[in-house]
């Protein structure tokens, strides 16, 4: 498999009046051609910031990309000019933003919102672009007659379909979906996920699926990366991760899901809070919440350990401890 997107040592800060928010700190992530990579982590871990960083859409001010590389098919997107980035956005890499209720322009009809994406990358007449926009609407299960309607005439799930139609309109290589189902009702969540999965196949896209829902990951993803405090703490293919989660944070995440076959009295959330992103701990970002933390964890920042088989973890415990290879 080919690496289609390779994020290396990415650092993104928000420089606000109340101090500097260290949102993404030396993050490494790679996306293979044709795969769905899940990015999991709790709110504030830096998921959206990473996604916006890849799109070149970190709000500046206050956001600043402080370092790193984002290699898409051999070119570093961070070195691209605005004009070059415009050709990438929508056409090569498309993004679905977190909240469908606010992601659509309320005063422009949905057909036009899709058509303008098409027109910005393809030399098409207004009419031809509109026709293609209608096809896109049909693809996501909205009758083409509704192209002239405005976002307020659609329900939340329908809005998300429109957003997906916009993202896919120019047949991008990579789709970044930032919590595409979080804002939706459970029944509609499943519909939207199914649709995303199908469309990913038809369009031969690679997908970066951001979520904090491990259930969604299990259903949809090939590989998972767990993000904590702006860095990846564990990554593996989806079976390995669910079977053999090594990082204490991943363990905590998985333990916090109630299991139907066990008689649980209470949910087991991870104790403690995310560290203040303006004052990250010196050592391991997770040490204040970790049951295994010792002196070294508090003072020294752990490196990513490669355990083979594409399983990586950022924890001192596995430097010495032998891990049996999965399967």
């Amino acid at each position, binding site marked *: 498999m080919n690496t289609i997107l390779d994020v290396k040592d990415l650092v993104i800060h928000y420089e606000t009046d109340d101090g500097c928010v260290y949102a993404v700190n030396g993050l490494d992530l790679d996306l293979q051609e044709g795969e769905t990579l899940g990015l999991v982590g709790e709110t504030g871990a830096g998921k959206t910031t990473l996604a916006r960083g890849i799109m070149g*859409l970190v709000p500046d001010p206050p956001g600043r990309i402080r370092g790193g590389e984002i290699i898409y098919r051999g070119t570093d997107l961070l070195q691209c000019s605005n004009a070059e980035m415009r050709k990438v956005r929508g056409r090569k890499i498309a993004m679905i933003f977190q909240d469908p209720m606010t992601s659509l322009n*309320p*005063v422009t009809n949905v057909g036009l919102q899709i058509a*303008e994406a098409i027109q*910005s990358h393809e030399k098409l007449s207004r009419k031809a672009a509109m026709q293609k926009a209608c096809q896109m609407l049909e693809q996501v299960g909205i009758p083409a007659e509704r192209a002239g309607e405005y976002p307020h005439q659609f329900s939340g799930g329908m809005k998300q379909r429109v957003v997906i139609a916009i993202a896919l309109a120019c047949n991008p290589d990579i789709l970044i979906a930032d919590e595409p189902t979080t804002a939706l009702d459970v029944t*509609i969540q499943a519909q939207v996920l199914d649709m995303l999965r199908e469309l990913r196949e038809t369009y031969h896209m690679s997908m970066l699926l951001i979520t904090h829902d491990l259930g969604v990951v299990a259903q949809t993803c090939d590989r998972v990366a767990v993000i904590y405090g702006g860095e990846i703490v564990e990554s593996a293919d989806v079976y390995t991760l669910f079977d053999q989660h090594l990082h204490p944070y991943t363990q905590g995440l998985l333990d916090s899901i109630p299991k139907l076959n066990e008689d649980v009295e209470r949910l087991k959330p991870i104790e403690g809070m995310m560290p203040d992103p303006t004052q990250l701990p010196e050592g391991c970002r997770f040490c204040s919440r970790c049951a295994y933390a010792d002196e070294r964890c508090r003072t020294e920042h752990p490196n990513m350990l490669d355990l083979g088989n594409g399983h990586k973890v950022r924890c001192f415990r596995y430097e010495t401890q032998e891990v049996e290879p999965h399967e």
Partner: protein
Amino acid sequence: MIKYIVKRLLLLIPVLIGVTFFVFTILSLAPYDPVTVILGDGATEEAMENMREELGLNDPLLVRYVNYIWDLLHGDFGKSYKTRLPVADQILSRFPNTILLASCSMVIAIVLGIPLGILSAKKQYSLLDNVATVGGLISVSMPNFWLGLLLVILFALKLRWLPSQGMGEDPVSLIKSLILPSITLGTGIMASVMRMTRSSVLETMRQDYISTARSKGIAESRVTVRHMLKNALIPIITISALQFGHLLGGSMLTETVFSWPGVGRYMLDAIKTKDTPAIMGSVILMSVSFSIMNLLADILYAFVDPRIKSQYQTKKKNKQKKSPAEDGGKEATA
């Protein structure tokens, strides 16, 4: 929509009754005798009494007011005490001049104010933004007539580029004579339009749909106009329409400074000579133009924002429109 407009126009009636009654009462309470204005100081007591009787000034206030309104309903605005000419004719002959001046001032205000506001917002806290902010504050707080006098001194008296008085007859001198008064009136309005545009664009800039628009790879100019400005337009329309409504009522000071033959100067002259019918006529014109501009703003909202448009449509229509559309969706109830 039509129903809404008609309703709003009907609402104009009580507004006009209120305004006319208020002004009429104040004028009749004022300690002066219109008859001395008409006849001059040297008139005999008998002539003055006859004149009072003729004008119905000896009747009680309410009777006079009802008579006035009655005449008004027949299209009769009365005759000016001073010139003895029909007020309606005098105002209508001056109104086009005021419309011309008001329109030019608004064009200046909008053509400069909106782009400057957008630029300020997009480059928030930059040098340009700070200069625009300070400049805007100065222009808003500077009295119009003072700016007018400064312009006259500089461009008319010192440089002799432009005329300082009156309204040109042929097109070229008309345009020349329009420039200074339009700038005088337009500057303050431009500053308010600019400030409003800036704050409204700053607000829409942060919205998610702007990120969506950018993520499509469309040109930044299109993001700015189609997505930011269009969503930021409502408060800009409000302030522009209200300001235009003000201008259409005539700007007394500026028209006087430049001897512009408009309704504002007419009103000021009427006030100076205590010419009640002329004052009343001007006040009615002011309130009508202000209210109509207000209504126009409300109608424009519907063109800019489909959510407002759907509110204007009657309930019945809404239902008919909604149901088949919602059935089309798989999750109509969600």
